[in-house]
C-alpha cells in the first residue's frame, strides 16, 4: 500500500464529487430533505380521529359523553348521523375512522345505576389507528363513568403503568434515532455504489488498471472522501434530530459518533462492493444499492417493527443487515443513555460487518477487463 497513490485517488474523487451536481445533491441535500420529510410524515401519534356519532338517546347525558370525546383532543366529530347505514358510507369515503353509537335507553340506564352500553365501530382497514383509537375510547369511557358517578367502579387491582425512556410516548422520539440510521444506510451505499461502475462506464478504468495501483489502494482511496461525507451527514442528521425535532440525546454524543464511524465504514464498503459487482453499469449499481439498503433498514432493522415480534427465520435474516445494529445503538444512546459496555455486542458485529465487506470488495476487484 502506497500512501502516495491512496492520496492521489482520494484527491481525484473529491474533485470529481465537487464538480458533479448530482453527487453533491445525493451527498448533502438528500439526507436533510429525507429527514425532514420522513420526520414529519412517519408518526404513530394519533390525534383528531374523525368520528361520526349516531345519538339515539338525544339526552343531555349523551351530549355530555360526546363532548367528553371531543375535549379529549383525540377525536373530532365529523358528523352526527341518523341511520346506522351511514357509518359504512363515512368509512368508505374515508370521512371517518370511528363511529360512536349511543342507544336509546342510555341515559335511563345510567341514571338507574346500571351499566350502560355504548357501541363503538372502528375502521379496521387502518389497524394501527384503530388499535390506538380503541385505547383512547376505553380511557374516555372510564373517565366519563367516573365523572358522572353512574357506575360504581371498584376494580380489584388498580394497575398504573409508567412508561420509561420516552414518558410522553412521543413517537417522534423513537422514530428520529432510527430514521437517521435508515437514511444514512441508503445515502452512503448509494454514493459509493456509483464510483467504480462510473469508471468502467466512462472507460477511465481501462487506463487505471494498466497502472501498478493495487485494488486495496484504489478502494481505500475511493472510500476516504465518501467516508468523510457520510460522517458529516450523520453529524448533520443527529443535529437536526436534537435541535430541530427536540429528540433528547441521553447518552454520550462521542460514543454515538464513534459507532457512527464504524457504521459509515461498513456502509461505504458495502456500496463499493455493489459497484464492483455491477461492473460497468451505474444504473444497476444504484438500484442494487437502493434495494439492498432501503427496504431492509426500513423493515428489518427494528426501526419500524420490533425484531422480537418477527418469525424466527426472519429474525435470523436481520443479522446480515448492519442497520439492525446501528438502530439498536442509536435508539439506545439517544433514548436510554446506553453505555459502551451495553452496546459492545452491536459494536462488535458492526465492526465485523465492515471489515468483512471491505475485504470482500478488495478481493472481488479485478484489474482485468474480462
Amino acid at each position, binding site marked *: 500500500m*502506497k500512501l*502516495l*497513490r491512496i*492520496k*492521489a*485517488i482520494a*484527491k*481525484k474523487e473529491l*474533485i*470529481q464529487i465537487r*464538480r*458533479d451536481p448530482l453527487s453533491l445533491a445525493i451527498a448533502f441535500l438528500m439526507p436533510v430533505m429525507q429527514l425532514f420529510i420522513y420526520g414529519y410524515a412517519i408518526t404513530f401519534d394519533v390525534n383528531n380521529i374523525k368520528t361520526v356519532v349516531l345519538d339515539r338517546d338525544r339526552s343531555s347525558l349523551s351530549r355530555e359523553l360526546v363532548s367528553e370525546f371531543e375535549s379529549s383532543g383525540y377525536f373530532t366529530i365529523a358528523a352526527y348521523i341518523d341511520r346506522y347505514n351511514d357509518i359504512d358510507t363515512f368509512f368508505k369515503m374515508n370521512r371517518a375512522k370511528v363511529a360512536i353509537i349511543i342507544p336509546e335507553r342510555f341515559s335511563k340506564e345510567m341514571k338507574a345505576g346500571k351499566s350502560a352500553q355504548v357501541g363503538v365501530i372502528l375502521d379496521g382497514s387502518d389497524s394501527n389507528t384503530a388499535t390506538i383509537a380503541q385505547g383512547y375510547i376505553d380511557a374516555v369511557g372510564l373517565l366519563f363513568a367516573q365523572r358522572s358517578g353512574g357506575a360504581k367502579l371498584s376494580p380489584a387491582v388498580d394497575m398504573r403503568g409508567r412508561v420509561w425512556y420516552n414518558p410522553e410516548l412521543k413517537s417522534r422520539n423513537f422514530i428520529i434515532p432510527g430514521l437517521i440510521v435508515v437514511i444514512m444506510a441508503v445515502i452512503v451505499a448509494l454514493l459509493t455504489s456509483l464510483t467504480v461502475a462510473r469508471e468502467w462506464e*466512462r*472507460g*477511465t*478504468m*481501462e*487506463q*487505471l*488498471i*494498466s*497502472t*501498478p*495501483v493495487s485494488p486495496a489502494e484504489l478502494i481505500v482511496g475511493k472510500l476516504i472522501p465518501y467516508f468523510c461525507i457520510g460522517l458529516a451527514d450523520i453529524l448533520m442528521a443527529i443535529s437536526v434530530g436534537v435541535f430541530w425535532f427536540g429528540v433528547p440525546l441521553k447518552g454520550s454524543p462521542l460514543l454515538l459518533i464513534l459507532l457512527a464511524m464504524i457504521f459509515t465504514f461498513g456502509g461505504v464498503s458495502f456500496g463499493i462492493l455493489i459497484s464492483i459487482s455491477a461492473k460497468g453499469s451505474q444504473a444497476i449499481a444504484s438500484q442494487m444499492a437502493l434495494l439492498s439498503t432501503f427496504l431492509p433498514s426500513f423493515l428489518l432493522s427494528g426501526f419500524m417493527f420490533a425484531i422480537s415480534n418477527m418469525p424466527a427465520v426472519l429474525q435470523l435474516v436481520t443479522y446480515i443487515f448492519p442497520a439492525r445494529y446501528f438502530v439498536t445503538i442509536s435508539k439506545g444512546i439517544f433514548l436510554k443513555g446506553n453505555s459502551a459496555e451495553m452496546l459492545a455486542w452491536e459494536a462488535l458485529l458492526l465492526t465485523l460487518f465492515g471489515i468483512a465487506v471491505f475485504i470482500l470488495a478488495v478481493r472481488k476487484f479485478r*484489474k*482485468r*477487463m*474480462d
Partner: protein
Amino acid sequence: MTPAGEIAVKVERLRRTFGDFVAVDDIDLEVKKGEIFGFLGPNGAGKSTTIRMLCGLLAPTAGSGHVGGFNIMTESEEIKKRIGYMSQKFSLYDDLTVEENIDFFSGIYSVPAQQKKERKDWVLEMAGISDRKKSVTRTLAQGYKQRLALGCAVLHGPQLLFLDEPTSGVDPISRRNFWEIIYGMSKEGTTVFVTTHYMDEADYCDRLALIYRGRIIAGGTPHELRLQHMKKNVLEIDVENVVDAIDILYKSGIEAAIFGSRIHAEVDNAELSGPAIRNILEQSAIKVRGMERIEPSLEDVFVTLIEVS
C-alpha cells in the same frame, strides 16, 4: 547483453476467444528492444484484444509469452509496473483539469516528489498545452487530448510503451506531430508497440505485423513487406491528361489507378511494359512527360495480402 535480453515482447500461440468468437487466433509476435513495432490491421481485426493481453488487462485464453521479461499469464502486475499504456478510447478524466490529470497519474505511478514538477512541465510542453493546464480536459481538441494521454502514460518513464490507435480521429498535422514524439521516445531507448489502421503510418515503424481476422498474415520491415508480397512492378506515369490516359490504359487491359496528378500502373515487368505503355499513350496523342518504376506503397501491399487471405 545476451540475445534473449534484446527481446522486449515475445508471445507464442496467443489466443483469445469471446464465446464462439475467436478474436485473436494463435498469434506469434516478437518485438525487439528499442524498436517501433507497428501492429496493423483493419478495425475489428484483433489489435486491441492483443494489446490488452500484452498489458495484462485481458487474460489470454491460451498461449504463452513474456513482456519485459515477465510472464503474461502469471505476472501481469509486474508487467504493469514497467509499461505505459494508452487505450484506444480517450480514458483520462474529462472532468479534471489538464494539471489535475497529470498530478493524478503522477501519484498513481509514484513519481518521486523532486521529479514531479519536471515531469509535469515536460508533458505540458510535449503536448503543447502549457498555457491550458487549468482547462478542464473535456474542452481540449482531440489532438491535444491524445498527446496529454500519451504524456500521462509515460510519466514514470517506462521502458515499454503500448499505444492502441493513438492517432485515430486526429487531424493529419497532429498525427505527424504525434509520430515525431514517438520517434523521440524511441531514440531514447523506449520500445514502442503501436497499433493503427492507417496504412500510411506503417512507414513510421521499424517493423510491422499485419493482423487480419485474428490472424497475423504478414510481418517484417516495411521494405521486406514490399519486396516479398508485391510481386508486380508499379510504374508511375506523368502525363498531361490523366483522365484520358487512364481510359486508354483500361481499354488496353492495363491495371492502373490515379494517384494525385499521376497514374500508377501495375505491370509484371517494368522493363518490358514501360516502352509499350509509352507507345500506346503517344499513339493516342497523349504526351508522356515522364515514367519511372517506384516501390509499391504499403497500402497496395495490404490490399493484395487481404485479397489473398
